[in-house]
């Protein structure tokens, strides 16, 4: 037993060394590194980065190295700085040859972000299906939660901590009638009352089909979304933008990024690849173009997508300072919420 004890102790010491030496090195040498705020200017057809000069004054620089003052930046990014331009009385009547007004611009502006941690963390499998037609202006959280297991859809009343079998049966039957295969492979919802309307769930069933489920007057409203041939969705996200133009985003198993339109049409975007389980994404959209920031393995790439057909307008890779990393063991990761050993 003494030999076994010593072997075990040595293993523990080696384990501590390969965990803590790289961690200590990274802790002592890492420096916070900010990414300059970047947006695509539809007028210029270039990316613009916000920089801070030696005199701590802010200025903009486009991807060809041309510098612009703060106020010039406002005018070149009129959708993002609409409020500033309106306040200064400088908001234009037309942008890129298209007549615009602040209300129209506001309606088309949106920000969407996704981090891999959101999909790689332990999930309870319980979701809040909000009432989409409550008759009230403000949305309310439901009094129950639901799950989409093997047996069908189940609802639990939160106050009584009891299953509402009747409601579950109603939803399960309607989903079955629409051809839904239980259990759900992926459920996407935007659970918040801080939005003006609710698009319900985007659900990928066990057969890889896409469904939109809403709760209308406490009854199910299910829509099967026809997918193009060969598209096998692995991830979905619900969007509830002011312009009501989209239902959400989906990603296929070959890392293609699609937009699901409000009427259920699927459009392939010009984004070369996007892996929702590994990549972080930030979309800042407006009536003309969407700026996409994609972070993958410490590398940042910016893409500009056309707001109408989502085709790729331009891309730009940002140089990152090389950080020397010692390979080792770690237990946590920015990509998931699990604690487990990983090299």
């Amino acid at each position, binding site marked *: *037993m*003494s030999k*076994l*004890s*010593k072997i*075990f*102790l040595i293993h*523990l*010491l080696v384990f*501590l060394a390969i965990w*803590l030496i790289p961690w200590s090195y990274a802790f002592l040498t890492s420096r916070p590194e900010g990414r300059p705020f970047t947006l695509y200017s539809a007028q210029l057809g270039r990316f613009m980065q916000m920089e801070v000069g030696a005199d701590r004054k802010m200025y903009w620089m486009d991807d060809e190295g041309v510098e612009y003052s703060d106020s010039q930046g406002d005018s070149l990014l009129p959708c993002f700085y609409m409020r500033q331009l309106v306040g200064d009385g400088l908001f234009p009547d037309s942008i890129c040859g298209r007549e615009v007004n602040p209300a129209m611009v506001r309606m088309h502006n949106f920000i969407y972000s996704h981090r891999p941690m959101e999909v790689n*963390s*332990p999930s*309870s*499998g*319980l*979701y*809040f299906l909000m009432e989409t037609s409550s008759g009230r202006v403000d949305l309310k*959280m439901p*009094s129950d*939660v639901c*799950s989409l297991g093997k047996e069908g859809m189940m609802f*639990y009343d*939160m*106050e009584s*901590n009891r299953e509402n079998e009747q409601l579950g049966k109603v939803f399960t039957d309607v989903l079955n009638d629409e051809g839904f295969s239980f259990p759900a492979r992926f459920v996407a919802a935007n*659970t918040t009352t801080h939005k003006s309307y609710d698009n319900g769930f985007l659900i990928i069933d066990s057969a890889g089909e896409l469904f939109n489920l809403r709760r209308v007057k406490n009854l199910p409203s299910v829509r099967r979304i026809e997918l193009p041939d060969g598209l096998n969705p692995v991830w979905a996200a619900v969007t509830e933008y002011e312009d009501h133009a989209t239902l959400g985003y989906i990603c296929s198993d070959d890392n293609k990024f699609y937009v699901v339109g409000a009427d259920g049409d699927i459009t392939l975007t010009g984004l070369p690849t996007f892996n929702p389980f590994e990549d972080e994404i930030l979309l800042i959209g407006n009536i003309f173009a969407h700026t996409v920031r994609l972070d993958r393995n410490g590398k940042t790439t910016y893409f500009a997508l056309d707001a109408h057909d989502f085709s790729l307008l331009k891309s730009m890779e940002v140089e990152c300072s090389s950080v020397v990393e010692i390979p080792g063991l770690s*237990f*946590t990761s920015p990509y998931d*919420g*699990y*604690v*487990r*050993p990983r090299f």
Partner: protein
Amino acid sequence: MIKSIFYKEWIKTRLCLISTFVVLTIVAVYCIVTLGRVIDLHGAAKVWQMMILKDAVFVTLLTYFPLVAGIFMAAAQFFPEMSRKSLKLMLHLPVSGEKATLSMLAFGAVSLLLSFLPGAVFLYVGLSMKIAPVLVWRVMLTAAVWYLAGIAAYFLSSFVILEPVWKFRIPEAIMSVLLLRVFFLSSSACAYEKFIISLTIVTISMILLPWISVIRFREGKQ
């Protein structure tokens, strides 16, 4: 002989074990009562939302109690052995030193687990009355890591206390603290879901460590 060892260990540790049982049960009761108050004040829906959307577990008060209980248990069991040099006597009993040490450690670990059990059962029953089974499971899985840390703390503290040379106790204590850190890297619900089985195996294997100290003690290291 083993029965006698168990009886001797019970005499030494009964106060610690009863205190552990009482304190951990009170903490579990307190957690459930607090959860009930939050539900009364904000409604059950708010609690469920926090648990589902924010990964809250509502029993974080419990986090370090099993760890402290494990350290106290090791102290109660092995400080008298070292201070009165009775470990030397135990190693001369008509039973092998290995068997006697393992019996003492097994007694400590199992009795510690039994003292954790009523609190854990109370937590499970209390939560089951207020939240869905899947959420109860998430809380219990999170708390299981803290209970496991209590057992690991017991073995590691025994390892340090039984060490006969003071200058070795310090690196051993540092090593123990670093190893125990692994149990507290995240307080999110179910964060250890994929690691808990391996962590349990490593924790059980830690029973081997105090034997290294006992060997050194038997060899007369001072």
